[in-house]
């Protein structure tokens, strides 16, 4: 029954950048950058609101990947967790199942384990790791001080 669900990839509020075999996605609402590996990118791009999980898993059957449906479920779980699907999807996998499946994929599959790496984009001040402190001790009260210890001239100490 759950395999009849037709997940839809979120379209709005995202910046998407293709690399050779990965997708870079920037969530404008969450200010979060993500890197989808090839497996996850393939699943996400197949989530058009019409393809069922079974339909999507055929992409991997063509690659003779074992456990193709489970691979898709792992990817769908991750996509949902990172806010990359329009609607909630009822997961097929319990956490125990997920661990088992990940083991199986890792050892026996021609397809890479689905992975989404992510990080919250820093503000410009944090990106340069300078703080907003103009005097020693300011870092304790300045919310923009990333380290809470600085040398009092706008440079954070380790």
């Amino acid at each position: 029954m759950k395999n009849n669900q037709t997940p839809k990839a979120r379209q709005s509020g995202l910046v998407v950048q293709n690399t050779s075999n990965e997708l870079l996605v920037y969530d404008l609402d969450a200010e979060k950058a993500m890197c989808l590996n090839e497996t996850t990118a393939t699943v996400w791009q197949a989530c058009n609101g019409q393809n069922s999980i079974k339909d999507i898993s055929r992409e991997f059957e063509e690659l003779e990947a074992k456990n193709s449906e489970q691979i898709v479920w792992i990817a769908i779980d991750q996509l949902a967790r990172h806010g990359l699907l329009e609607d909630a999807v009822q997961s097929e996998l319990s956490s125990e199942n997920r661990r088992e499946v990940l083991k199986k994929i890792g050892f026996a599959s021609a397809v890479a384990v689905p992975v989404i790496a992510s990080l919250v984009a820093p503000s410009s001040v944090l990106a340069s790791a300078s703080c907003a402190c103009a005097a020693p001790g300011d870092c304790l009260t300045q919310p923009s001080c990333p380290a809470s210890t600085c040398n009092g001239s706008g440079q954070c100490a380790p």
Partner: protein
Amino acid sequence: MSHQLKDIEGGRDKIVCFESYGVRVGISSNYPDFLQRVADELDDIFPTDIAPIDNSNIERRIEITRKEDGFIEFMIDGEEVSGSYSEENVFRFLLSRIRLTVAEYATSRVFVHAGVVIWKGKALVFPGNSFSGKTSLVKAFIDLGASYFSDEYAIFDENGLVHPYPKTLSIRGIVDDFTQVEHTAEELGAVTETEPHPAGMFYFGQYEENAAFEPKPLSVGETVLKTVSFTLPIRVAPAFSLDVLQKAATNVIRCESKRGEAEITAPLLIEHFEKHSN
């Protein structure tokens, strides 16, 4: 080039205006001596791209106010940033924020906090925070004959080429672990490159005492994602930033590894670069 203070019509405050990397900035103050000191530093803050402009169509406004009791505070675009009774502290911090403001809003460039040297015609880029050892690594490369490009920013254009930001190198460890002493690249025996170069390597490495250099290759996507942490305009211009970083990180050596002393790591990085580049 000297940056002249101008009167603000209908008031006693002065203003100095400049354009750098496409960003039009106006800095005004009721404390002209302090403002002149800031104006005198502008060419050093932006060594490759700065020009005085008139005070029309200013995009980013910085206001410095000296209160009657001597407290100096400044605001950027109407938001209070910081203040202090120490003129020196405000001065140094203000310069850092002027630099950040341009780096964040530059329209045609992506500023990444990184050290950069040129080795055999390619830019070797080491993204990292302050205190991550960028300058030590840059200096170690210079000692091996690399040309100097930047110890502060890698500036990428729309094609992914790296442009220089040849400010003086800020070297810590001479006075104490925090105080930076400025040296020109020439004082350290290096040549400063001034033309844009294609990237040849992205290396991410945090110093750890006695750490072995064991480079792990990174994909383009992983490299861009790691670089995002040090990319100043990522929130203001995410699409442009990702596009530029992806171009810059394609067809280059990409790796990460903990590292020990810079003098030990630099030759290993060169060996790694030369072994894996075409």
